[in-house]
């Protein structure tokens, strides 16, 4: 009856606001590139490497967003599972693609169990999933350390002295993943315009994207979107809300585990006690930079985000050095920007949520007014 009462100015403002984070980042990157003095070839190569390395992990975040559970800070759980798989294959001396596949097979049940646990807990904390999943990450990190730092060695048999600390139990701080280093990247590495492109990794990522597209249209995907829209309505429609939410977290965790394995085969070194904690923050920041929000994210956001975020990441130390004479300042700057971006995105999301609520109220009031007028 009454059309959206929105002026052109408001529309423009809305578009700007929806993409505020990406636009801000574009500006930062442009300035950074100009001042860093890096060649385009170097930047291109770095970006290709990092897109191949990180995309899988970031895509794993999409499903819980679809189910309305916000950013899954619990993806660190999957990363831990992936790392446990990698520790085992390193000990057994399984290398190459078979090693990666075996690591994925080992990680799957661990991820599924952790994801199920995470989903259960998140169902008890509806409405504050994000902060809860964030704390779950820390909590499970404690358990992970208990297992890896104290359990591995005599209790969980890990024999290779290159992995076990000299004291006889516990895994070393850094594990050299020489067996699977660049295993996937080098399968089909081609050169395009002088840049080396790990085609196989991109094919794997493309397959995952296809899976995501298919999943969105599947019955389960539709259910998840319904749950994400409104839990009560979904429940009334006969969808098992709790179950659907758990499944979304389980899938995300398993995918995060695979993503971590792909990430680490590129890095070639496992930081046993840090890698997983950093990766959650990285991935979430990158996704948000790509224009995603707490309740809306697409595959496009992933690629735009990973490109922009890592561009900023690469150029800022050098730009800091050239601008102010201190590379360290640039490093702190990129840390600040990573956290700032998440803060900004979360704040914008909450503000928008409130505004849309008040706007809906305003429209309703207008509607009623119109109705009264018509009656007269």
């Amino acid at each position, binding site marked *: 009856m009454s059309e959206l009462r929105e002026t052109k100015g408001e529309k423009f403002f809305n578009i700007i606001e929806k993409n505020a984070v990406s636009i801000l980042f574009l500006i930062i990157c442009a300035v950074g590139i100009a001042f860093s003095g890096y060649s385009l070839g170097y930047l291109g190569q770095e970006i290709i490497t990092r897109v191949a390395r990180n995309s899988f992990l970031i895509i794993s975040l999409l499903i819980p967003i679809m189910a309305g559970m916000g950013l899954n800070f619990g993806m660190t759980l999957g990363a831990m599972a992936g790392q446990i798989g990698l520790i085992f294959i390193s000990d057994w001396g399984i290398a190459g693609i*078979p*090693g990666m596949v075996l690591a994925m097979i080992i990680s799957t049940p661990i991820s599924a169990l952790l994801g199920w646990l995470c989903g259960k807990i998140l169902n008890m904390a509806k409405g504050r999933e994000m902060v809860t999943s964030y704390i779950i990450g820390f909590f499970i990190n404690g358990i992970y350390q208990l297992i890896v730092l104290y359990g591995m060695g005599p209790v969980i048999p890990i024999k290779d002295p290159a992995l076990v600390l000299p004291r006889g139990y516990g895994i070393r701080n850094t594990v050299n993943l020489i067996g699977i280093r660049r295993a996937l990247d080098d399968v089909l590495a081609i050169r395009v315009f002088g840049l080396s492109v790990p085609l196989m990794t991109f094919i794997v990522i493309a397959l995952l994207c296809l899976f995501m597209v298919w999943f969105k249209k599947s019955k389960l995907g539709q259910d998840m979107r319904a749950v994400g829209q409104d839990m009560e309505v979904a429940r009334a429609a006969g969808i098992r809300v709790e179950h659907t939410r758990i499944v979304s977290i389980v899938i995300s965790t398993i995918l995060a585990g695979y993503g971590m394995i792909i990430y680490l085969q590129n890095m070639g070194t496992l930081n046993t006690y840090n890698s997983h904690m950093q990766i959650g923050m990285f991935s979430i920041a990158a996704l948000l930079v790509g224009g995603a929000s707490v309740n809306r994210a697409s595959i496009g956001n992933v690629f735009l985000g990973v490109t922009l975020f890592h561009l900023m990441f690469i150029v800022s130390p050098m730009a800091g050095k050239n601008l102010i004479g201190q590379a360290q300042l640039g490093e702190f700057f990129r840390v600040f920007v990573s956290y700032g971006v998440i803060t900004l995105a979360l704040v914008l999301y909450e503000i928008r949520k409130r505004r849309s609520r008040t706007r809906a109220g305003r429209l309703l009031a207008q509607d009623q007014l119109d109705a009264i007028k018509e009656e007269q």
Partner: protein
Amino acid sequence: MENKRALLKRRIIQLAVIVLVILLGAVMFVVGKEHTILLDNKSIESGGVTYNAFQVVEVQVDGRDKLELGPRDRDKEVVMGQRHKVTVTYFDKYYEEHVVVKKFKVPISQKMVLISLPAVAAELDQSVWLTNYEAPTLLNIPKDEEPIVSDDLIPLDF
């Protein structure tokens, strides 16, 4: 009843998938297992006969680069999987070239095997030239830890 049968069918499929995945894991284990092959050009005694080390010998594992070994030299190749081929090229005392190609299978449990080249060249039994090798414990002391390669962002060590 119908429901029960569907459930049973589902359970069976689930079980089959799990078994398949475990099987895949086992295959990956066998295929991806790394073995270190030590290639040893050293005199060896077998059945009362001594087979002398070569003055110079070329050896090739699978399709890799050829390695040239002098007397008492030892080199190594790290290979994946069980089945491999070793090609030994040597000259006898009449300066005639001989090529011996042997296919072999490394037992899954052995991390390191030693291949005696003189024994291979003499075409002895596989059990003579292919033996398990336990590295002395001294070799097991790991090197210093490598510098950490990472995208360190923040000291996140709560």
